[in-house]
């Protein structure tokens, strides 16, 4: 087992990893930018190094400084968290050549799955259903037209190197197709340095259902059931829950098995999430694999009782999975609300600044994962999420009730947050009935 790990991240996920390491008896090295200097969560690490000025590109993404901190900090492994360098195959490779374990998959598996088109091909090989799509990249409007007429409109244009909802456009007819293609290509070029796109049939009223998987270095793969992340705005998840209300048990079992096959096909180890889209008839299609731990991992932790961060560390250190598939039980219902420092009444304008007072909810079935505290200055340079509020109860109705109660208790004074938006969603009949697809927020809410 490792003696020391460097956490190449910040905020709530860094804190999450420090906690897991503390319980495993592993020392931690934190990194921070000048904007995060003095943050309270850093005090939970055993050592901390400043790696640069505020902008991520100068600090959290500065591979030389991160690796250097790992070397002078004398660590055996690096946990990348999510975002930043978590899915950077080059960084992964650099760790390996510096003889530092990367807590995640091998660089080859990561690179393969990072190419969305290559991942689709791999899914087909693993007999995992995929959304009908173009066979490879689409470069011209003519090619796009041909494909669209084959599978039928509407179609979705997606960036090959994409993520986070960028480089995606929907086109409902020939006229829209040409400009949508150009827009997607330029957005992809700007965001990822790669303007290559492919096309898929656009699934209407889709549900986003993903499966959590763990794979060790000894060939053992298990799934930890699904999460439904259909409550989204502009492809950003707002609320996640498990189990999904969009699928029956037969579909659930099929999806979870398909996710395992996908991970085995990719020769992947450590934690991964296999994303699917479910159409209105309950048919599921593979979308992509997220080769990292995800923001919403606590949802799975609550319903399975399994600490995913600890599992990641154990796997990376060479341990065999102690859990067998039959040991992974799903209990009750868990819901997570992402609390963002944004103003829902002003088009979700970011709201950085000082949290004058933070009042944290508690009680039976409530978990709050956050690095924030009273007096904490939310910096403007990073992701706006300041915390995750998670609840777990025996039934979905009880979980919704507890979440509403916890959101009412949660007090964040001094900045705007999305708490009111979550209340609105949880009170909406469509949500209560479990009738949500990824267009729900934009279609129905006042924002």
């Amino acid at each position: 087992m490792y003696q020391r790990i460097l956490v190449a991240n910040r905020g709530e996920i860094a804190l999450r990893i420090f906690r897991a390491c503390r319980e495993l008896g592993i020392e931690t090295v934190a990194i921070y930018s000048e904007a995060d200097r003095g943050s309270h969560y850093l005090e939970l690490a055993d050592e901390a190094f400043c790696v640069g000025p505020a902008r991520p590109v100068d600090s959290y993404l500065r591979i030389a400084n991160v690796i250097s901190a790992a070397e002078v900090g004398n660590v055996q492994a690096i946990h990348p968290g999510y975002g930043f360098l978590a899915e950077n195959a080059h960084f992964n490779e650099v760790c390996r050549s510096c003889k530092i374990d990367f807590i995640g998959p091998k660089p080859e598996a990561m690179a393969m799955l990072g190419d969305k088109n290559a991942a689709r091909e791999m899914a087909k090989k693993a007999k995992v259903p995929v959304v009908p799509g173009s066979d490879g990249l689409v470069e011209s409007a003519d090619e796009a037209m041909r494909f669209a007429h084959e599978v039928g409109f509407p179609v979705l244009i997606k960036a090959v190197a994409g993520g986070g909802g960028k480089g995606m456009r929907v086109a409902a007819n020939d006229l829209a197709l040409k400009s949508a293609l150009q827009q997607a290509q330029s957005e992809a070029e700007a965001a990822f340095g790669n303007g290559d796109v492919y096309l898929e049939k656009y699934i209407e009223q889709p549900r986003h259902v993903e499966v959590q998987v763990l794979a060790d270095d000894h060939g053992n793969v298990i799934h930890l059931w699904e999460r439904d992340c259909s409550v989204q705005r502009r492809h950003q998840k707002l609320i996640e829950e498990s189990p999904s209300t969009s699928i029956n048990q037969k579909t659930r079992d099929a999806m979870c098995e398909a996710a395992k096959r996908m991970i085995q096909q990719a020769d992947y180890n450590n934690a991964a999430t296999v994303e699917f889209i479910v159409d209105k008839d309950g048919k599921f299609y593979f979308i992509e694999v997220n080769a990292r731990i995800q923001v919403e991992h606590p949802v799975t932790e609550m319903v399975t009782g399994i600490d995913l961060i600890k599992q990641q560390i154990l796997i990376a250190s060479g341990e065999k999975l102690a859990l067998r598939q039959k040991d992974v039980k799903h209990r009750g219902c868990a819901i997570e609300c992402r609390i963002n420092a944004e103003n829902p009444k002003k088009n979700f304008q970011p709201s950085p600044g000082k949290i004058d007072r933070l009042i944290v909810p508690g009680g039976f079935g409530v978990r709050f994962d956050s690095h924030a505290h009273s007096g904490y200055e939310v910096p403007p340079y990073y992701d706006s999420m300041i915390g995750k509020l998670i609840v777990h109860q025996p039934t979905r109705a009880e979980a919704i009730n507890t979440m509403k109660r916890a959101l009412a208790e949660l007090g964040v004074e001094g900045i705007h947050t999305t708490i009111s938006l979550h209340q609105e969603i949880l009170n909406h009949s469509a949500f209560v009935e479990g009738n949500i697809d990824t267009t729900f927020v934009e279609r129905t809410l006042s924002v």
Partner: protein
Amino acid sequence: MSSSGSGPGDVFDVRKIRRLVELMNEHDLGEVDLRQGDQRIRLRRGQEPVVSMLAPPVAAQPPPAAAAAPAADAASTPEEDPNAIFITSPMVGTYYSAANPEESPFVKVGDQVGPDSVVCILEAMKVFNEIPAECSGSIAAILVENGDAIEYGQKLFRVEPAS
């Protein structure tokens, strides 16, 4: 701790102090006296370890840079002097005072430096980076020691600006 701007390089890093106290107890040491630049910390163990932070020492054993001014409290160390300029680290790495162990250090206290003068090496990922002063003046204090782990922005040298 981090909030006061101290980090792993500082003598006053609480984690370091805690470890020193542990070591003292473990090895039954009575007293530990450490110096870094013109800061000093002394831990003396009686019934319990006692921590006292001394102002820059005067007269008998002054670190080469300390002016004779007997600053009475730790708060007004030369590092806090608003007129002082500092050479700070542009990266994370290990500090080396010379190009290699056989050679003499790039600079010593009193040396004149210009913007391109190499003042030290910072090693990261097996690459030895020569660090330029990027200012003009004379070296007033060397704030780190050979082999120290250095973080971004850490003060390496205090410089008396060229007048």
